[in-house]
């Protein structure tokens, strides 16, 4: 009798670190290929078009980076909270509140305080700060509930998403709706002083906010006392208390920064891309951020690369809908298959499969 058994690896060899994700990707492409053949499309053509659409040429590349910008920020947001085992799955709502606050500043501050110079040098930092604070506030409530009453943060952060999304939809369909918008839902366009400068295509300074935040978090994790305390709480909360670390203070602080980063993603979206508050802010970037953080093993600098790869997957998936006329659902299935295989394959880098030949007794 031969049996298969999972055994925990004591160490992960370097070749496994590379071969497992690559192998997972290959398997995912193979599984997706079966589906593509079933709907009558040559898989090689389809995958080629995906890569072309995501990374082939200037426009494709800038669009992928545009798509990556909010993913970097929400990925960082989630990575920070998860390091302390605080399960913040509310990045979506925090992003939306950040977008709302940034929009609010851009739309109403010029009228309310005309003395403030209408210059990007003034307005962009103000909008960023407002987004940071609004996101942080949205994260603060679950953090306080958790640290003082022990309320499960998974439930509260998740529920806060829906409150934020519905609030934001209410704003741009009613009170903040542009009277000159021919009845279309959406706010008025911001003045140009509230636009993040663009490099090329739609690619804007938002990506620098993301990369800068990643470097900041990297510094926190690897070079600061605070990062040490976060690691200590994440690994053993009782040991952290014993070492004199205030768990209450850190839950609040981590959550404020985590949610603030998600809020910045909202700022980058409204100020860099849409230039108004409208449909399209709550498109799941907060949830995709969880995948990004997890795939990056909660490491800030890796978050950048993972976000760009995932963004490529999204952009490429959208492209084959156009170039090959595939239904949206097919490209979403492909995206799902790739993520499923890569995330699931990770178990093989932590465990190994051993064949055990019994002697039949």
């Amino acid at each position, binding site marked *: 009798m031969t*049996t298969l*058994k999972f055994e925990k690896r*004591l*160490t992960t060899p370097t070749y496994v670190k590379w071969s497992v994700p690559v192998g997972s990707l290959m398997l995912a492409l193979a599984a997706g290929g079966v589906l593509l053949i079933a709907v009558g499309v040559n898989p090689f053509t389809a995958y080629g078009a995906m890569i072309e659409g995501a990374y082939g040429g200037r426009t494709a590349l800038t669009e992928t980076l545009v798509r990556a910008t909010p993913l970097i920020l929400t990925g960082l947001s989630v990575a920070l909270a998860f390091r302390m085992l605080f399960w913040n799955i509310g990045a979506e709502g925090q992003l939306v509140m950040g977008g709302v606050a940034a929009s609010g500043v851009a739309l109403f501050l010029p009228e309310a305080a005309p003395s403030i110079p209408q210059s990007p040098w003034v307005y962009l930092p103000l909008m960023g700060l407002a987004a940071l604070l609004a996101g942080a506030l949205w994260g603060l409530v679950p953090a306080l509930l958790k640290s003082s009453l022990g309320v499960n943060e998974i439930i509260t952060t998740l529920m806060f998403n829906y409150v934020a999304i519905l609030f934001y939809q209410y704003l741009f369909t009613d009170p903040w709706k542009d009277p000159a918008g021919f009845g279309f839902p959406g706010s008025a366009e911001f003045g140009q002083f509230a636009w993040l400068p663009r490099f090329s295509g739609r690619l804007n300074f938002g990506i620098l906010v993301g990369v800068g935040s990643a470097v900041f978090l990297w510094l926190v994790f*690897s*070079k*600061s*006392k*605070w*990062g*040490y305390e976060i*690691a*200590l709480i994440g*690994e*053993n909360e*009782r*040991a*952290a*208390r*014993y*070492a*004199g*670390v*205030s768990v209450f203070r850190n839950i609040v602080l981590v959550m404020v920064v985590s949610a603030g980063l998600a809020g910045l993603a909202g700022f980058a979206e409204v100020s860099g891309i849409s230039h108004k508050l409208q449909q399209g802010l709550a498109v799941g970037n907060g949830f995709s951020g969880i995948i990004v953080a997890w795939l990056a093993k909660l490491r800030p600098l890796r978050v950048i690369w993972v976000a760009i790869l995932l963004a490529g997957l999204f952009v490429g998936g959208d492209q084959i809908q156009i170039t090959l006329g595939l239904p949206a659902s097919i490209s979403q299935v492909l995206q799902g298959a790739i993520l499923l295989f890569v995330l699931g394959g990770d178990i093989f880098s932590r465990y190994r499969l051993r064949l*055990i030949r*019994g*002697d039949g*007794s």
Partner: protein
Amino acid sequence: MTDQLPVAVRMEGITKRFPGVLANEDVDLEVRTGEIHALLGENGAGKSTLMSVLCGLYRQDEGAISLLSNGGLRRVDIGSPRHAIELGIGMVHQHFKLVRTQTVAENMIIGMDGVPFRLDMSQVAADIRELGERYDMLVDPTAAIWQLSVGEQQRVEILKVLYRGANTLILDEPTAVLTPQESGQLGSALRAMVAEGKAIVFISHKLDEVISFADRVTVLRQGRNVATLDVGSTNKHELARLMVGRELATGVPKGDRELDQPVLVVDGLEALGDRGLPALRGVDLTAMRGEVVGIAGVAGNGQQELAEAITGLRRITAGKVTVRGVDCTGKTPRQMIEAGVCHVPGDRLGVGLAGNLPVADNLAMKTYRRRPLARGPFLDRKKMGSQAKRMIDEFGVLTPGPATPARNLSGGNQQKAILAREISAGRDFESGAVLVAAYPTRGLDVGAIEAVRARIVAERDRGTAVVLISEDLDELMMLSDRIAVLHGGQVMGVVEPASTTIEEIGLLMAGERRS
């Protein structure tokens, strides 16, 4: 004699390798039905590995296992812990594997096969009560695990194994967490089990226990089987020599000192326990500069709460804690650290260390806030590494390096690391630090115990006020200058080792107040 009893388990030529370590090499072990078989050896001698092979956690690289089945021995291939349970082998681990938020009864059936869809917990509870009565190991089936003392939790683990129909029980250092009384109770429960024809393997490194509990003993040293002996035909000295491979020193010489400066003064201290009931009810205690004050008592009489209240980890409901004349009542753990109160916690991996973090990070837990490790908000990882190297060298912590996760160290070396950290933190206090050491030698092997005790005495001689909580009366008598006996959250009396007896302390522990 046990010679006539049938063999229940036979392990032959077991070899198990880990990367870089040969944990077991060609080990033979034979356990008979109706016997308590001790497996004796120092930490790292391969006892736990051998038993993990038997209970299906690891697979041996070489060797064979046979079990008694239908009157004859049969070769088996134990693929998993579940398979081992099916074969009637159950293990009680040193670190309990219980779900803290669930009840005793729920823990019994977690992961069990054949649990009916519609659960009748009252039947499970009744079964537990019956088992408990049979072996005189009563626990409340409806209590949640976190409400139980360590001794009670162990009973749950043992009952769980019995409930699942084990006829071979493996107990990994079961008395490490028990009082002498609880150990005695455990011994008689084990006797009742072997009288029913069960076989028991008892992992230990305590010689007294092996002599008083076991029928036969197998000694392991450095992964090899050194000897299997009848307990009746051997003695402590022979076992110690076999186990360590050399003769041991006994006792720790202490220097003379003058007791004139009180460093820690505890006055009418009251605090609640985890269950919200009063655990400390007016404790008075003074520790002088250069003095070891032993705290004796049966487990669960306020020792842990006392340690936590002094170190700021538990809220004080009444009374005062003064350190070097400064009122420290109600201060946070951090403020107590800064006041020079060092703490070797009783729960090494649960509180004292973050197991997955590197040794260097663990050694920095008390110093990371200050220079030279800290510079403003930044932390100098290089200095953290060199600090770790210094401590590792000075305190003889055996580790592959400062980057190794603390969890991978043996129990003795984990404890040395904690001591290294706490003692180093206390050195900054010239006028005398406080060291609260809770069960510092619990679960350690003979060599490590010697080292830890010597360290504690050296700290005392250096002028630290040591509060030593221990369940080992011999240890308290050996190390303490005075011994305070706790019972029901109160100090029953303070005695001096030179002018008292174990019997007197025993009476105080039982609640007889000293007049």
